[in-house]
């Protein structure tokens, strides 16, 4: 808990530092990573949130799933690799060993190594491929957010 809080605090500091740079979507002379589009219209959360917190959320859900047996949360690594599957030249989804893999393209760009795929499959399962890929898009609900924030305030 304390550790997770600390890493969250750290993440927040990073966000505070980076927010203006990233919020500005105007073209910049900086090289950008190749980011393939995912299936559907939206990710499980908006892009800004996902960019900053996907790892925090994945970790939190991973502990819930592995230890508590809670399944069906939004932040599942299986869902990531399913929606964001990129097909190779053979028409089959590529794995993390391919530089085109969604996770790899960005993590290589940011020079952040991950070891998720030393154990996890980096390709969609055969069953998932057939199923409908995209979750329903999220809509902003400022009232709910405000209510939530009021409730969550210590």
């Amino acid at each position, binding site marked *: 808990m304390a550790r997770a809080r600390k890493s969250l605090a750290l993440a927040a500091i990073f966000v505070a530092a980076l927010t203006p740079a990233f919020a500005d979507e105007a073209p910049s002379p900086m090289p950008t990573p190749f980011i393939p589009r995912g299936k559907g219209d939206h990710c499980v959360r908006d892009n*800004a949130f996902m960019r900053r917190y996907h790892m925090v959320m994945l970790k939190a859900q991973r502990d819930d799933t592995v230890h508590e*047996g809670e399944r069906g949360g939004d932040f599942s690594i299986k869902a990531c690799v399913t929606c964001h599957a990129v097909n190779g030249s053979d028409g089959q989804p590529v794995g993390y060993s391919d530089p085109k893999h969604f996770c790899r393209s960005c993590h290589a760009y940011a020079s952040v190594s991950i070891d998720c795929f030393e154990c996890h499959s980096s390709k969609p399962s055969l069953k998932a491929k057939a199923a409908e890929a995209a979750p329903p898009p999220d809509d*902003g609900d400022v009232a709910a957010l405000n209510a939530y924030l009021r409730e969550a305030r210590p």
Partner: protein
Amino acid sequence: MTPLIRDEDRPGHDRRGFLRAAGAFAATVLAPGVTLYAFGAPGDSAAAPGAPASSAKRWGMLIDVSKCGDGCVACVTACKEENGWGESGDPRTGAQWIRKVSIRDPKTGWSADLPLMCQHCADPPCAEVCPTGASFKRADGIVLVDKHICIGCRYCMMACPYKARSFVHEPIDDQKPNAPRGKGTVESCTLCVARVDAGLKPACVDACSAKAGGAMMFGDLNDPGSDIAKAVKAKASAAIRSDLGLDPGVRYQNL
């Protein structure tokens, strides 16, 4: 919907509190610069996440040794297929989540074949000795390795009385999505935890009923109405190495 914003918090789950705080933190920092519509999306209340493992249940298995065929490996094959192990040809270093053991009484000549895997002890010695808590028992009695925090010390393998655990000796690729496994960590039978959480039976049990003698039964030992609870009540069953007092969830009949 996500646990992040659920209103009806279950008591005793501080993780929830933490995640709420996490959300609040993120929101306050993000809000000025970014459109934030992550919280309280209307579609969220529709799908409920899977119910967590409950201590009201005790998943168990009953194996009727008299129905287990000599040389039949349907359960082993099904497990390999389901969980994606068995890639190594070397029996010394390759994974063995489940194996067939032949036993013989040298005095009487009686012999039998039986499948042996993690016995999902109520008091698992592996979890007891694990320095990081990577080996643990779920509330519903399933003993697992959290490979995210397994450091590969292999003390659990020293402690397990059933030799039920394997160490991944080589880098592996093409894992099954439901069975993550990787080099340098310890693994064992998970009772097909992803299937069980989805309301299915372990792959070995299904394979045994479909292709073999139907020697394996799976169910909730705590539910008096379940087949397995009735079966263990009707006829004597035994735990392997019951002298150790570990109260395994896997029991054997006609052993």
